[in-house]
């Protein structure tokens, strides 16, 4: 059908009218990245805030954690990485809402731009931002004593799991931003996700320190599973299959949820 159409129309016209998801998404990712570099709050939340949090948590809780027998910088770095991904996700929800309110999304829909390109473009930009945060955190973490105790393949798995988590969380937040539209509502909603999921997890403190009735929730929720997987990748002789499979299943589910949600929300947004 497509081939027949392409044959029937002049070659150039068919090509320019056909939406090219990858090219359009790359274009829009570039736009978001340029906008981010011009926004001080964006740079601060990508680079400065993750740094401040890892420094503050290490400084304030390092001693009490050592007393509990935990090498806190090795424990904390996966948490800081997860937190940085949350910052990217919150940023993506706000940018998504701004593009709905500002009319950019509406404008794009009137043009020969792929329907899924706005979501993919924003996702790509936020993934690039997450990589920047990861680099900064690994540098400061190494300076504070963080080490990969597994082999090189395990160490390589660390950024892979982080990016998979970022893809899953950011796509859900893009869906949220497209659906909620108002920047204030988005800010509140994203924080109501961020704080409980991050603090009621084994990211910053072991599940054993939580009240016993809360422990099952803390142990099973996705942020803890991702933290466990990231931690297994930094530990020598860790059993990898189980944490990676559980985290992978959660992330696949979240990614599907985000993709469906974003597609639906874009469809309704005009």
């Amino acid at each position, binding site marked *: 059908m497509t081939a027949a159409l392409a044959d029937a129309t002049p070659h150039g016209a068919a090509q320019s009218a056909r939406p090219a998801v990858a090219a359009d998404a790359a274009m829009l990712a570039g736009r978001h990245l340029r906008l981010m570099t011009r*926004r*001080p*709050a964006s740079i*601060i939340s990508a680079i*400065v*805030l993750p740094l*401040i949090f890892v420094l*503050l*948590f290490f*400084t*304030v*809780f*390092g*001693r*009490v*954690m050592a*007393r*509990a027998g935990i090498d806190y910088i090795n424990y904390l770095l996966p948490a800081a990485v997860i937190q940085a991904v949350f910052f990217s996700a919150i940023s993506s929800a706000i940018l998504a809402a701004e593009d709905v309110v500002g009319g950019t999304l509406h404008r794009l829909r009137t043009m020969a731009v792929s329907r899924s390109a706005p979501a993919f473009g924003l996702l790509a930009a936020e993934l690039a931002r997450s990589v920047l945060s990861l680099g900064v955190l690994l540098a400061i973490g190494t300076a504070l004593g963080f080490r990969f105790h597994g082999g090189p393949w395990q160490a390589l798995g660390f950024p892979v799991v982080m990016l998979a988590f970022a893809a899953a969380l950011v796509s859900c937040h893009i869906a949220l931003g497209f659906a909620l539209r108002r920047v*204030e*509502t988005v*800010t*509140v909603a994203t*924080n*109501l996700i961020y*704080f*409980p999921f991050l*603090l*009621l997890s084994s990211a*910053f*403190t072991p599940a*054993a*320190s*939580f*009240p016993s009735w*809360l422990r099952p929730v803390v142990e099973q929720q996705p942020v803890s599973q991702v933290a466990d997987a990231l931690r297994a990748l930094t530990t020598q002789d860790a059993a990898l299959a189980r944490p990676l499979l559980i985290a992978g299943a959660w992330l696949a589910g979240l990614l599907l949820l985000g993709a469906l949600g974003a597609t639906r929300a874009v469809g309704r947004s005009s």
Partner: protein
Amino acid sequence: MSASVRPALVGDTLVMSGRALRLTMRDPVTVVLSVIFPLLLMLLMTASFAKIVYPTGGYGDFVDIGLPLFILVGIAFAAPMTAAATASDLRSGFDARIRTMPVPTLAALAGRLVADTARSAVTVAVVVVVGLPLGFRFTAAPWGAVGFLLLPLLFGLGLGFLALLVAVHAPDVETVNATLNPIMLLGMFLSTGLVPSADLPGWVQPVARVNPFSVVIEAMRALAHGGPTAWPVLEAVAWSVALVVVCGALALRTYRRRSARPAG
């Protein structure tokens, strides 16, 4: 005739306070930051860190000792929002409009400050009411409890002027938050609010001792739980008054200049 033209500072300030309070209550971010955020943080930090910080104590002990910090969290993180709103009155032309009317120059600002203090009072009330069943106790004299409830309001006024000082120079809310949130974070973490001074690293201990957040937190603890109160409270009041006077004077200078020439 002349009575209707003469500015009435108290009455006009009350009207402006009502306006500012309504605006504050209608801003979901400010409401969340001053009511839900401190409660959420208190519950979550207690669940996750109580057993680490006080291995021999219970979760209630962490609430009892940490409650002053959670009050200050609510006050400190909402302050930039209301300060930015005050500064936006300068830019939107609201202040210029008020200046053309027989209203005292500073009634609009005074109204904002009254509303800010009311916002702080709501935070104090909510955190204390939720903290009591979780393990917070007033074990000292009743006047100590009164001082405990009032001290954060005074410190909140100081933080409000600090935030206003930043807000009158910043172009938008985002910049106000981006400037102030790291300061507030440093103030709250590098304090004795979460972890006792002895458990902080050596180089942090002197920082935590002079940090105004620690000073106010220690004074609030003394007021709630007993022990020597005169010196800690004096120190906390001195810090708050210093913030009000220094930041207030600097902020007011710019505020007056800006409201005289609103186009800038």
